[in-house]
């Protein structure tokens, strides 16, 4: 635990260093460090500095608009928000998940697998592979997808094509690669045609082969320096996610399961409509992002991780054969019940990508996915909860409506919020173990960003930033006077414009 670095005992004589904004992540955040005269880190925090207020402006809208509106939360995982809202408004028309027409259920699952596949491919190949292939402290001009395409053309192109395939699955079902329509209250609005099914089926074997190749690649990278990859940014935590009734990996619908760092079950098969009985959120003054925790464990020890690492750790098995083989190897590698390596998020993410590719093939070969019985109707209700495993983790949508079907209350817990404490802990681990006592450089600071990127955070759950953003590092004294400044321009050029 590195929580002793959350707040320095005193800020007297400490220098402040900011990584602002963090690049190659979704949205905008910053990392601040307070250093003493010997460059020892005394405080390290990840701040989320934007405020969006989506829960507020959803209020007053008719519920049937929700699946379309909430997609605007995110340019990279709009389908996850679309489906979570879709599941919630199913309940508003009296339809439980088990009562959804089978064709609609399968079509939604197909849509979700396409979404997770494209998002995982985007994250690994576009955002993280530059760090993993070229090195965390490599030339800044190398740390982008264009350099990967130049130096590793096969790997880069496969990543681009994997993402595009996932986007095509979305387009066939929703009409557009981004911000289309599909889910409606109680079902889906359009059937998949045979020509659309055949179009997707024609490439799916190649996609499975590439996804399997991506798992091999990440295993090779992880294994190339096993102790380092197992220890970098690594923390021990609880894990939360959905699993199916028999404990299988589940991305679309299931019960909540939480395990502790020893692999012991904290809760299992929890009806997610009762999430408020199990999860609370804490507010801290220095970040707009809340800190969720498991109520039974309390604020201090109840924080948890979600996302691919949590899901692969938590599930008992994966229902598709190739991914299950990889899961077994993944779990065996850790040598204990749970894998805690933060960089193993990448490994787990690609196992899931393989699972998605296999599942897409299964669903495309199921004639029912082209069925036309797509909408069910029930008795109106005034409250609905939809929970889904988004690419980055468990996503909660909770709405209340009035007698006129107008939304009166909305609560969203997005995946990245659940990883807030964990990301802060990983930042502190890197700051304490890899930065403390060393001289400030841009490549060194990229280590902090590598730790954050492993979680694939969607800091605003907004549009996607590919490549690097301009970055300014300022060193100020306790009086706020500027001592030193390092500027990274949008073209990657570094300027050191003050002091030594």
């Amino acid at each position, binding site marked *: 635990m590195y929580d002793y670095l959350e707040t320095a005992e005193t800020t007297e004589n400490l220098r402040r260093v900011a990584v602002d904004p963090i690049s190659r992540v979704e949205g905008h955040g910053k990392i601040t460090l307070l250093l003493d005269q010997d460059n020892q880190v005394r405080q390290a925090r990840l701040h989320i500095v934007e405020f969006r207020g989506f829960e507020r402006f959803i209020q007053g809208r008719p519920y049937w608009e929700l699946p379309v509106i909430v997609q605007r939360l995110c340019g990279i995982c709009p389908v996850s928000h679309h489906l979570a809202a879709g599941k919630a408004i199913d309940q508003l028309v009296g339809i439980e998940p088990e009562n959804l027409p089978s064709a609609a259920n399968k079509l939604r699952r197909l849509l979700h697998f396409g979404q997770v596949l494209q998002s995982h491919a985007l994250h690994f190949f576009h955002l993280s592979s530059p760090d993993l292939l070229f090195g965390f402290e490599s030339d800044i001009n190398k740390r*982008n997808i*264009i350099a990967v395409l130049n130096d590793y053309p096969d790997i*880069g192109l496969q990543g681009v*094509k994997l993402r595009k*395939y996932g986007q095509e699955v979305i387009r066939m079902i929703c009409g557009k690669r981004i911000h289309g329509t599909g889910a409606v209250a109680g079902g889906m609005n359009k059937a998949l045609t045979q020509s659309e099914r055949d179009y997707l089926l024609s490439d799916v074997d190649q996609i499975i082969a590439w996804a399997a190749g991506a798992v091999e690649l990440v295993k090779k990278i992880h294994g190339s320096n096993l102790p380092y990859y197992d220890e970098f940014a690594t923390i021990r935590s609880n894990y939360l996610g959905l699993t199916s009734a028999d404990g299988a990996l589940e991305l679309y619908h299931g019960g909540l399961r939480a395990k502790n760092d020893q692999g012991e079950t904290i809760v299992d098969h929890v009806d997610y409509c009762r999430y408020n009985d199990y999860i609370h959120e804490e507010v801290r003054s220095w970040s707009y992002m809340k800190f969720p925790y498991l109520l039974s464990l309390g604020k201090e020890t109840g924080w948890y991780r979600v996302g691919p690492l949590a899901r692969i750790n938590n599930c008992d098995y994966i229902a598709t054969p190739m991914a299950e083989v990889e899961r077994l190897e993944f779990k065996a590698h850790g040598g204990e019940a749970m894998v805690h390596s933060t960089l193993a998020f990448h490994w787990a993410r690609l196992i899931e990508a393989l699972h998605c590719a296999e599942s897409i093939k299964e669903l495309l070969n199921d004639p029912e996915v082209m069925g036309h019985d797509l909408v069910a109707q029930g008795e109106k209700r005034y409250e609905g909860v939809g929970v889904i495993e988004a690419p980055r983790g468990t996503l909660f949508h909770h709405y209340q409506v009035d007698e006129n079907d107008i939304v009166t209350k909305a609560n969203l817990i997005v995946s990245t919020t659940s990883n807030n404490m964990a990301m802060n802990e990983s930042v502190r681990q890197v700051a304490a173990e890899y930065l403390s006592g060393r001289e400030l450089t841009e490549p060194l600071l990229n280590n902090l960003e590598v730790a954050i990127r492993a979680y694939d955070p969607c800091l605003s759950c907004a*549009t996607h930033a*590919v490549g*690097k953003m301009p970055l300014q590092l300022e060193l100020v004294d306790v009086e706020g006077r500027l001592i030193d400044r390092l500027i990274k321009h*949008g073209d990657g050029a570094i300027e050191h414009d003050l002091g030594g």
Partner: protein
Amino acid sequence: MTSEVNSILLFGYGNLSRGDDALGPLLLEFVESHLNLGNIDLLSDFQLQIEHALDLEGRALVLFVDASVSCAGPFDFAELSPGRDKSYSTHAMSPSAVLAVYQTVKKQTPPPCFLLSIKAEQFELGSGLSAKAESRLMQACQFAAQLLHNPAPDFWRQAAQCRVNLQEYEEDAAEG
């Protein structure tokens, strides 16, 4: 994806919810409702990304349509060439950068690609098209219809040259 594609790609990009940024997608809506699409594929997106390089595969002609604040006239029309600019590191790539990615990953020259830029005024979230942009959109739609009725690279190159000549003439006339 390995499926058959139509030989002409019309790719309008921009955000329908941001005022004049909608010009590209709106031109596509005009084409879809007024022209026989035949061998034309329509593609619309918010912004250009690396994956769009793969949409150029198998095309004989590609027309990008975008809103622009820097047009000399109501609209500009020019042939594109691959260019490794800095836009790959941003939210939105330039069309030239997309062509450069195509060249990198396909190891071949991209198909003839042209950019139709329509002059835009404002990009406020939630606002509609400005009056000036509406007028320019209709002019650009008529121009695009002529292009799509004559889907030959040489014809489009001549049209691009004509736009340049016309702009030079108008600039000279303005200077007296």
